[in-house]
């Protein structure tokens, strides 16, 4: 049960400020992901938490203890870098035992602990192999075992699956989640991969221009972005500009050119207020049956159909100015015989429509 607090962290390299008064709290036993684009300061933040590259200002607190001025070895943090950084001149056994040997742990305890972790990570038979003889997945497991054997307060992982093929990546992600739950480890994980973030994170934060732009559970951040940057960064498919034309209690009516959207919102939005409307494809239901006129039902024509991963993205022109994007499976497209120019009906589930007030 270990908690990490970062308070007013700042770091600059020359005239370039990489981290600006960043504050963040990571709860015990959670897998927290820091999501950001390349060169956005993710690694700087990670190296600072470890103590390898001290911050210019701010404090790092683990379990209530200020570790800002402690050396990396004294912070008791496990670290798995992107390339795993296994020690090439040591065998798997020696790599895993490295931290224990530095702590002068008795030989019999080292043997027991290493054997146990080798069992946990399915590394049987590889004890006397050198890292150059291991596959990517095996290297990843050795790196994890080496970091976890010292029973760290916190485990930091720098893009741990980015170097793996898709199959191994899926396997390792599942294993990481399992390890986290089984060993009750607090993990901080950095990546630029949204998909990975949504699959893995208990909570995540988006790092932008040296600050955490928004943090929360994947559902919270993914469906309720608090800023246009977050909405765009998370590739929200439908980002539309509109204004509040009617408000009654929690009910609002939004006009987006010729589209009129009715919904509930907890936000205080006066009539005339400009808003950014974010709609995920999952909130838009497409059908070829004649529409029953009702709330948030629109007719339009198919403008394009593009493959996106396993699904297809269907772009529907609902007014001369506005298109809405939705996703449906390839089999549904075949079943509905969707083609370019075909008239379709869209109904929007208001529960998944999110509004961001324009400042």
């Amino acid at each position, binding site marked *: 049960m270990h908690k990490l607090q970062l308070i007013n962290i700042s770091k600059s390299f020359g005239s370039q400020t990489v981290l600006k008064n960043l504050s963040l709290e990571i709860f015990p036993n959670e897998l927290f992901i820091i999501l950001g684009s390349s060169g956005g300061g993710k690694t700087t933040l990670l190296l600072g938490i*470890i103590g390898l590259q001290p911050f210019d200002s701010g404090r790092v607190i683990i379990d209530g203890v200020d570790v800002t001025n402690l050396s990396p070895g004294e912070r008791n*943090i*496990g*670290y798995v870098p992107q*390339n795993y*950084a296994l020690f090439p*001149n040591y065998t798997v056994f020696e790599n895993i035992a490295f*931290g224990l040997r530095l702590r002068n742990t008795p030989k019999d305890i080292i043997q027991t602990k290493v054997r146990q972790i080798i069992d946990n990570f399915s590394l049987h038979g590889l004890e006397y192999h050198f890292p150059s003889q291991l596959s990517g997945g095996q290297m990843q497991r050795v790196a994890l075992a*080496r970091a976890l054997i*010292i029973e760290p307060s916190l485990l930091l992982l720098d893009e741990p699956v980015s170097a793996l093929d898709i199959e191994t990546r899926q396997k390792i992600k599942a294993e990481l989640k399992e390890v986290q739950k089984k060993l009750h480890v607090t993990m901080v994980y950095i990546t630029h991969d949204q998909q990975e973030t949504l699959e893995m994170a208990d909570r995540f934060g988006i790092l932008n221009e040296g600050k955490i732009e928004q943090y929360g559970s994947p559902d919270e951040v993914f469906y309720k972005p608090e800023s246009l940057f977050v909405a765009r960064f998370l590739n929200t498919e439908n980002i539309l500009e509109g204004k509040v034309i009617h408000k009654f209690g929690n009910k609002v009516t939004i006009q987006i050119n010729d589209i009129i959207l009715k919904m509930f919102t907890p936000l205080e939005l006066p009539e005339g207020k400009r808003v950014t409307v974010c709609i995920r494809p999952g909130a838009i239901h497409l059908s070829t049956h004649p529409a029953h006129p009702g709330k948030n039902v629109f007719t339009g024509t198919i403008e394009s159909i593009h493959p996106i991963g396993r699904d297809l993205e269907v772009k529907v022109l609902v007014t001369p100015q506005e298109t809405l994007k939705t996703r449906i499976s390839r089999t549904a497209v075949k079943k509905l015989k969707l083609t370019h120019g075909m008239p379709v009906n869209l109904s929007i589930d208001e529960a998944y429509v999110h509004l961001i007030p324009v400042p």
Partner: protein
Amino acid sequence: MKNFYLKTANRAFEGTNYFLSFILIFFMFFIIGSLFFTTTPSAFFQQMSSRVVLISVAVTFGSSFIASLIVFVFSIPTAYILSRKNFPGKRFLETMVVDLPLSFPPGVDALILLILLSKTGILGKFLGRFGISIPYTFAAVVLAKLFASIPFMVSFVREAFDRVDKNIENVAYTLGASPFQIFYKLTFPLSLWGVLKGLITALSKSLGEIGATLILAGGLTSSTGTMSVLIYFATQKGEMDKAIALAIILEFLTFILLTIIKFFFKETDHKIHA
């Protein structure tokens, strides 16, 4: 048509590579090999048993080993600092320790040293108080070889240290290792092949060094007469049998020595980077 040109260009590239490599290799073998046919076995063995030749072998290898050992001891920390630390004046230091000596003929360093170590020089005066005089002694031979080989060793070792993945050291820090433990458990063993390359180059430079030795040590006495210097004097005097015998011994022993070192280290390195 495009394919035809591409194939022709590829063939021309391959052919040129083989042709130029063959000329170079043939030239090297011809030069080294012809050495063995420029003397008779009896003349060679007669020279080999001469006291002057045997002493010069001892002086050459003895001084080269001592110089290489000193170079090794001083180059490792210097290369480590240049590789790992950032400080004002680092570039200037690199230029002074590596670049400048590499581009300067060793004779220039030797001339400066000779002036400094002469009876009227700053260092010479200081050492004179303790009854020590360096020029034209065995120590001068070692010093000359030292200056000829230092920049090579520092350069190679620094490059080897630079190649060690910083993440490896970072992980070791998080596991509780001290900088010294990281150096002897990881950085140095992982740089071994580069260190060896530096050592081989330093040793080779030492064994063949002549300019600086001639200036600083003279080479006229038995304790300063290295093989290279004796070859030079023998050639000047027209004693070709002696020069050839010395050249053959120098080449042969150097070849054996470097092969042994390379083989030993390659085995160690292979275990790490297999």
